[in-house]
């Protein structure tokens, strides 16, 4: 089966890219001014603890041995101890990972769906007022500065109207309450997620709408649409079942291409809304000089982007039967 081999080949590629990124990060951590050891071992640790940590990370060894230790530790998930939290980095990040994935995937899927849906309509009504409105709206939303939009959303919806909580992911009182069932907790998270999600969707759907619109305009010129018309199918069937599925393929490609952009935006959104995810942890650790946490958070985000790329590629192969790897 071609697809399986394709996935395998891509996984090997991802492993190679990840290996290169890790190596570059290792070199950078040693090139930067200052003492490399102080970057992995908390200066405020007791000498015994520090020595123990240095031994497990191989920091008392020559650089080449350090590199091997580094690879081994990364493979086993032992990325050091956070200066700020005093906990193993992997614990903290594994806690944050699901939150990021929740926000990231929901926002991408919803904005792509919205973009496809609106782009379809805009192309169908090409040249009419609704098309002009949608194109201008998409262009406008697409170029908004994300952190600013996030602040405006908080200011308007959380502070002024007061519909949503200002920051965070959960309300503590709901989670302490032993009577609160799963549904109530889920609703609480959704309530907190609404604003960051809306912000991300507003930023992202515009470019998908524009891609879908121009791709749909191309598709509508194809012969098989003419055939469908000649068969006497009604307009809605032609639009939704003949033109739209094919026209949506470039949107999938564009989702893949904008993944790095989306994760940037994710980090900014998480920071402004204090959503406890990987991006916020990275920004936080960088501003608090928490090097082990910053390093591990960056590597984990890199893995997330690479795997998300793979998912998009597989999805593309699945959606487009003409593509066989």
């Amino acid at each position, binding site marked *: 089966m071609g697809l399986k081999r394709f996935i395998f080949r891509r996984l090997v590629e991802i492993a190679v*890219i990840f290996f290169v990124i890790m190596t570059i990060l290792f070199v950078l951590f040693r090139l930067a001014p200052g003492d490399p050891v102080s970057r992995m071992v908390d200066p405020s640790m007791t000498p015994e603890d520090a020595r123990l940590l240095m031994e497990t990370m191989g920091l008392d060894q020559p650089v080449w041995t350090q590199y091997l230790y580094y690879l081994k530790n990364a493979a086993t998930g032992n990325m050091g101890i956070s200066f700020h939290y005093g906990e193993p980095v992997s614990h903290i990040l594994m806690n944050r990972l699901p939150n990021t994935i929740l926000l990231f995937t929901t926002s991408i899927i919803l904005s792509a769906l919205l973009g496809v849906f609106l782009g379809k309509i805009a192309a169908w009504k090409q040249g009419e007022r609704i098309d002009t409105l949608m194109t201008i709206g998409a262009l406008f939303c697409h170029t*908004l*500065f994300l952190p600013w939009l996030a602040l405006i959303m908080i*200011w308007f919806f959380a502070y002024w109207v007061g519909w949503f909580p200002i920051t965070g992911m959960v309300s503590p009182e709901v989670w302490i309450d032993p009577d609160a069932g799963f549904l109530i907790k889920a609703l609480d998270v959704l309530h907190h997620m609404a604003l960051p999600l809306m912000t991300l969707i507003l930023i992202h759907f515009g470019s998908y709408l524009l891609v879908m619109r121009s791709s749909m305009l191309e598709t509508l010129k194809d012969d098989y649409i003419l055939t469908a018309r000649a068969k006497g199918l009604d307009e809605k069937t032609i639009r939704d079942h003949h033109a739209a599925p094919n026209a949506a393929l470039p949107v999938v490609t564009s989702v893949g291409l904008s993944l*790095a952009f989306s994760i940037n935006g994710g980090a900014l959104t998480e920071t402004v809304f204090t959503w406890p995810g990987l991006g916020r942890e990275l920004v936080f*650790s*960088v501003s608090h000089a928490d090097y082990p946490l910053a390093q591990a958070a*960056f590597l984990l985000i890199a893995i997330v982007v690479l795997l998300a790329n793979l998912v998009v590629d597989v999805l593309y192969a699945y959606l487009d039967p003409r593509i066989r790897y």
Partner: protein
Amino acid sequence: MSEKFFSSPTPENTPCPAANRHRSHWVERFLDGWSVYRKNTIGRIGLTLLGLFALMAAASFIPQWVNPIYHPMTGVDPLISHSTGPSLRHWLGTDYIGRDIFSQLLAGARVAFMVGISSALVSILFGTTIGMVAGYAGRRTDLVLMRLADMIMVMPTLLVVLILSALFGQLNIWVIVLMIALFRWPGVARVIRSQTLSLRHRPFIEAARVSGASHLRIIFRHILPNVMPLALLYMTFRVTSAIIIEAALAFLGFGDPGTVSWGMMLQWVWKTGHMFQAPYWLLPPGICISLITMAFYMTGRAMDDVLDPRLRKEETQA
């Protein structure tokens, strides 16, 4: 991109359409493109906005010349010690230590142009060179360069620069510009490469090769002029992304502390907790970043229409 724009109507008869062209051809070509561009509403709006921002940038030296209390960075109004709303003395109010927001806004326009254009120039330089070399050399060079491009393309630029500023401390604005440029060339390189691939076997290139031109000469004298319009188009898109990344970086508190950029202004309003009380401070920088992004984007889209004769034809038909 169709071949029509990049070469004279009969490329087979002229040995090297672009390189041997007289200078007036360039002017003619520019005027030709301009006459198409002028008819594009989106392009006109974009250029007008850019003109306004350029005026702002040019005017950014005036306030501190009128009175030192209007200096965007060091000018503190002695009568004001906290953020105040708009008044005749301070058109857009003052920030938390009494600096004039309007003059900061003007200075921000200068920084945005500086960051955007210099960073875009560098990334276009890299992208065009690498794209042309990859497309022209082919085989292993092509493979290695494009794999490198793929790898850099999946990296979130903002987070990479974040990590670097964690390691190397506060980054200077020019280091930030260079960093953004170094991570934003792959997209350009891909497009230029495919354009080069389509040029590589054209008669005028083969003629140059047969007459003994070196590879470097072919790349820079014969291929470069033909990929130039495309590179210029991509420059407008790179300007936007550079401005956004610098603004986001400054917003998170990792900008150059010696410059007043719009991102920096947003960071101040956010970090000092004025976002709910001071809309006169929160709104202007965000609107400016969004508008300048939109202006460059619109200009780019309009240029795209000029460069794509297929679209031009449709436009005249409609």
